[in-house]
C-alpha cells in the first residue's frame, strides 16, 4: 500500500467507512502485532496492546492529519507509547525467551529467526527498537525519526551503528 492509497483509506475511515478501516487493519496489523510480540515476548500482552493501540488510534483518527507523516508511523508511535506505559507499570522489559516464539515456520527459517533473536538479545534496547521499526514495521527512516522523535540524520546513524553491531555479533 503506497502513501496515496493509505491517505485515501484514512479519509474514508475518518468519514466513517468501516470497510476502509478494515482495510487499514488488514494492512497494518501484521506489522503492528509482530512489533508488539517481539517487543513484549508475550502474545496475550501483545494482543491487549494491539487492541488498546487501535482503540486509541480510532478515537483520535478524526483529528489525524497526515502532514507528511504516514498512518503507520503514527500507529507505531501509539503502540510504542502503549508499551512504555506498560513497562512503566511493570518496571521492566521481559527477557528474551525463544521458547515463546511458537510460530510454525520452516526449519531453516526458524533457525535463522532464532539466530537473529539471539543476535538482537546482545544489542541494547535502543538498537533492538530501531531494528524492529525498520525491519518488522518496515518504516522508512523518516517515519522512524517521527516515531522516535529524533532527527532524521540521527536515525540513519543509529540504524547504521545498530546493524554494524548486529553484524559484529553475528561474526
Amino acid at each position: 500500500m503506497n502513501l496515496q492509497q493509505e491517505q485515501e483509506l484514512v479519509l474514508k475511515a475518518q468519514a466513517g467507512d468501516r470497510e476502509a478501516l478494515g482495510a487499514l487493519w488488514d494492512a497494518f496489523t501484521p506489522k503492528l502485532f509482530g512489533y508488539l510480540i517481539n517487543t513484549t515476548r508475550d502474545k496475550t500482552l501483545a494482543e491487549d496492546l494491539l487492541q488498546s493501540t487501535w482503540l486509541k488510534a480510532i478515537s483520535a483518527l478524526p483529528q489525524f492529519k497526515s502532514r507528511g507523516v504516514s498512518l503507520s508511523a503514527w500507529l507505531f508511535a501509539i503502540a510504542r507509547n502503549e508499551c512504555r506505559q506498560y513497562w512503566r507499570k511493570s518496571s521492566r522489559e521481559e527477557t528474551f525467551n525463544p521458547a515463546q516464539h511458537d510460530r510454525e515456520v520452516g526449519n531453516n527459517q526458524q533457525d535463522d529467526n532464532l539466530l537473529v533473536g539471539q543476535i538482537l538479545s546482545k544489542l541494547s534496547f535502543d538498537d533492538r527498537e530501531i531494528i524492529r521499526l525498520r525491519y518488522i514495521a518496515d518504516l522508512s527512516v523518516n517515519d522512524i525519526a517521527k516515531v522516535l522523535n529524533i532527527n532524521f540524520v540521527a536515525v540513519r546513524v543509529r540504524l547504521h551503528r545498530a546493524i554494524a553491531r548486529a553484524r559484529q555479533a553475528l561474526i
Partner: protein
Amino acid sequence: MVNSNIHNLLSQWGGAQRQLPERNQVIKNEILSHPLVPVAKNHRASFRLPWASFAFTALAIAALIIAVPKSGNMRQSAVTSQTYQSGGAPVAMLVPEQNGQGAASLQAVPDNNSYAFKSVPPQPQDVPAADNRELLKTDYSADVQTRDVRQMAARLQTTVRGFNGRVDSISSANDQGYISFVIPADQLGAFKAQVKDIAGTKFYTEQLSAQNMLPQKVSLEDQQTQNTDELNQLTASRDQLTIAHNQTAASFRSQIASLNSQLQVLNNQIPADPNQAAQIDAQKQDLQNKIQSLKARLANENNNYNSQWDSYNSQISDAQSALDGLSKQTADLLNTVATVRGTIYISYISLWGIIGLYVSGYWIAFLLLIAAVIAYYIHRRTLVFPSPEGRG
C-alpha cells in the same frame, strides 16, 4: 547463513515476525464496532497549552524585573559612600564639559565604574591662569565584596601598614565593615593594585577624587606676602620713629644746655648797681622758665616715643605670629597633598550575588527567553506529529 548479507537476514527475520493475532477476526470486529469519536469533543481535549514556554517566559520577566532595580540600587549605594567619604568638600566625578575651566578639580572613575554622578565641582578662586602648579589632595574610597568580612578587614589592615600607612579606624562584623586609613600619596597606585588583587577585580569598586589645593596655596602665599610687607613696614616705621625721636630729644637737650650756659654766665656776673641786679635777676628767671619748658617738652617727647615704640612692637609681634601661623598652614597643606585619606567599605556577598556579578540579570532573562522559544518549538513539533496518546 552466517556469511549472508545482514540486511537480507534482518529483512527475512522482520517479515517472519509479522503475523496476525490468533483471535484476529474477533479483535478486528471489536475494534471496527467501536464508534468513531466526534471531532469536536476530542479536538477540545487535544488542545494543549505550551506550559513550559509560559513558565520560561514568566521566569524571564521575573528575572528582568529583579535585575533592573537591583543594578540601580547597587550604583546608588556606591555613590552614597563616595559622598560620605569626601566629607563637606564638594565632589564631582569626571565630567569633561564641566571641567573646562582648569584642573582645579579632577575625579577619576577607573575600571568597571561606568556610572557617574554630577554635582557642582569646586571652582578655582583668584588663581592666575598662568599658574599651572598641581597640589592634588586625593581621597580614595573603595567597596569590596567578600564571603568573609572579618578576614578581609584584617588583610586590608595589614596591607595599609605594609604601605607605611596609618589605620585611623576599623570596624568589622559578619556582614559588613570598613577601614579608614591614610597612606603616602606616592604609594596609592601600588596600594590600589594590592587591594584589587586581594579582593578580586569583580568584587572591587573604587572611587578616586582629587582636588587641586592651589587656591588655598595661593591664598596662603598672598597672605604671607601681605603679612611680610606689613611687618617690614612696621619695622621701618619703628626705626623712623626712633630716629625722629633721637633728633628731637637731641635738639631739646642742646637748647637746654645752651640756656644753662647762658644762665651760668648771668650767675657769674656782679651787678654794679641795683637796677642792673634787677635786670640780671629778670633774665635769669626768664632763662629758667625756658629751661623748664624745654625739659617738660623733652619728657613729653620721651613719653610719646615710648608709647609709639610699644605700639609698633606689639604690631610687629602680631604680624610675626600671623606669619608663623601661615607657615604652619602651608606645611599642613603640603602634608595633606603628600598623603591620601581613604576608606574601604567591606560587605558580604551571597552566592546569588556572585552569580549576578558574573552573569547579569539581563543575560539570565535573555537565556530564559531563549529557553521559552525552544520549549515552544518543541511543543509545536509534538503537535505536528500526533501524540502517541492518540491526541491529534
